[in-house]
């Protein structure tokens, strides 16, 4: 309700937010659009080339690979982390004692950064000095399986390393939402189902998931958007993996910036923006359908 009529005051209160948005979001985005239409040499010489970069990207097999892999990567980590989180959240919701402690233990990855994740996973999975790598090699060796736990030469293992680390990091965030959502489910449903002799798995799939589907939909989109650029440190840790198998868009863009090919890098980041923009818009629309943003 409008208590205050002084529009000037109101504008002043909004000013800091608006200024920051303009200065650090909109103007740079505009500049990036401008930059995507030039070719730079050494990052300085600028030759206008119109939409050339975009046509190059559209026909570039390497870029198409990059975009496709970004989606594959995102899909794997989102599905994986949400499944793990759902499992943990279900357990936490069902257990009758110690919930708060279990909850804190389950969400701790929320407090970590991807940079820290990348570093510690690298040390643990490092082919030469990593403890996990060595343990796995011994374990599989004992069973007669000869698998190269070397993410510098084995693309499959590089993928497992990158998606595994990312999934692990994303679990915390998902658990926060899922536990909150599950706790909102009325106890009576629980009771009834148990009395009916409904098994746990059935419970999860037939009852819980549909009941928290708005949350799950929200998480799916937010996680996907994040998966496109937040895991950058993990991919950087293994330099894109053998044969650049993990050359997802954010890593590819970084390479271009590092090579001072600013024009092309800007064009690539606009494509990334378009994808993220669409996903975000989709999420906003979806959540509007499921929830209420306070109307007008």
């Amino acid at each position, binding site marked *: 309700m409008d208590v205050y009529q002084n529009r000037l*005051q109101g*504008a002043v209160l*909004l000013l*800091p937010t608006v200024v920051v948005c303009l200065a650090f979001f909109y103007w740079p985005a505009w500049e990036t659009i401008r930059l995507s239409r030039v070719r730079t040499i050494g990052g300085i010489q600028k030759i206008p080339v119109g939409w050339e970069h975009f046509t190059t990207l559209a026909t570039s097999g390497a870029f198409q690979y990059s975009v496709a892999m970004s989606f594959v990567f995102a899909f794997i980590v989102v599905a994986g982390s949400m499944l793990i989180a759902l499992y943990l959240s279900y357990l936490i919701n069902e257990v009758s004692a110690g919930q708060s402690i279990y909850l804190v*233990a389950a969400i701790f990855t929320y407090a970590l950064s*991807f940079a*820290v994740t990348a570093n510690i996973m690298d040390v643990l999975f490092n082919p030469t000095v990593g403890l996990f790598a060595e343990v796995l090699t011994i374990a599989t060796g004992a069973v007669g399986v000869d698998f190269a736990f070397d993410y510098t030469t084995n693309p499959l293992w590089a993928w497992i390393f990158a998606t595994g680390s990312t999934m692990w990091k994303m679990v915390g965030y998902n658990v926060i939402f899922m536990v909150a959502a599950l706790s909102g489910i009325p106890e009576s449903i629980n009771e009834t189902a*148990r009395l009916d002799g409904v098994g746990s798995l059935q419970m999860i799939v037939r009852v819980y998931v549909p009941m928290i589907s708005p949350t799950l939909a*929200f998480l799916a989109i937010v996680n996907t958007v994040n998966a496109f650029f937040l895991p950058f440190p993990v991919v950087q840790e293994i330099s894109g993996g053998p044969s650049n198998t993990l050359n997802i868009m954010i890593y590819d863009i970084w390479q271009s910036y590092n090579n001072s090919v600013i024009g092309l890098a800007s064009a690539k980041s606009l494509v*990334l923006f378009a994808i993220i923009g669409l996903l975000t818009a989709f999420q906003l629309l979806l959540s509007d359908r499921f929830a209420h943003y306070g109307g007008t």
Partner: protein
Amino acid sequence: MAGQEQLSNGRIRSAVDISAYRRGFARQPVLHLALLGSLFVLALPVVMTVLMSTQPSVQISSSTLAGVGSEGLSNYERVLFEEDFATYLFNSFVMALSIAVGKVGIALLAALALVYYDLPFKRLILLFILFTLALPVPVRIVPMYEIMVSLDWENSMIGLVTPYFASATSVLLLRQHFRSISDSMVESAKIDGVGPLKFLVFVLIPMSKSMIAGLFAIAFIWGWNQYLWPLIIINDQSKQVLQVGLAQLNPTAGEALWGLIMAGAVITLLVPLLLMIALRGPLLDTVSMQTK
């Protein structure tokens, strides 16, 4: 039929429901076991990190078994004082704190304006703020650097933190929260002729403590964990933050000192983790508000 009863919802169940009984009896311990097991696996990398941080780097590269190592805390000493982590720690702290205070403070002002002021084009303004969510750092980073340079803010704390001051989610959540404050409270303020800032400080903020604490925690953790922007804008090692400093401990040229890196990692993750644990109540509440 004897031995059966009818439930209030009309279903029939036998007086002694063996399966339910059996399930109920074994259920809790099984749940606990499952939780303990999975959480142990989840925490394993961090547990290993802590253990390895006490080991000398030479030992790790011979990958002996996990256990508290011989170095004790000497890796920490070395990383803090020889590798400048003490400096990075301070910088990260100042950065995260500034971002948290800035984000929440400015969002409070914006939410105040959007909810309690008669302004035109409110929806538009809201969308204007919301849309920034679709513009992640990589899309803006090069021009952002140039702005900083033209303001003479590059390689400075102020240049580092100001881009983070706008938070669409904070504005949104606070706005939602303010709107849920009962009309009667607002009415009485109106009648009393309370000024906007007084209203904010003495009415709104006290009624939003949990949310503000939650937003603060979220913003602090987010700011502490930033990597790409500090990497680009800070040139001077003495102004660098932990995330970047940690990455630099693991160079591509020359051999990495694993024990040191793990110690650095522990230092880097400790503060946000402790904050999360301390403010977990408000944090959990606020985060999950986003779906409501």
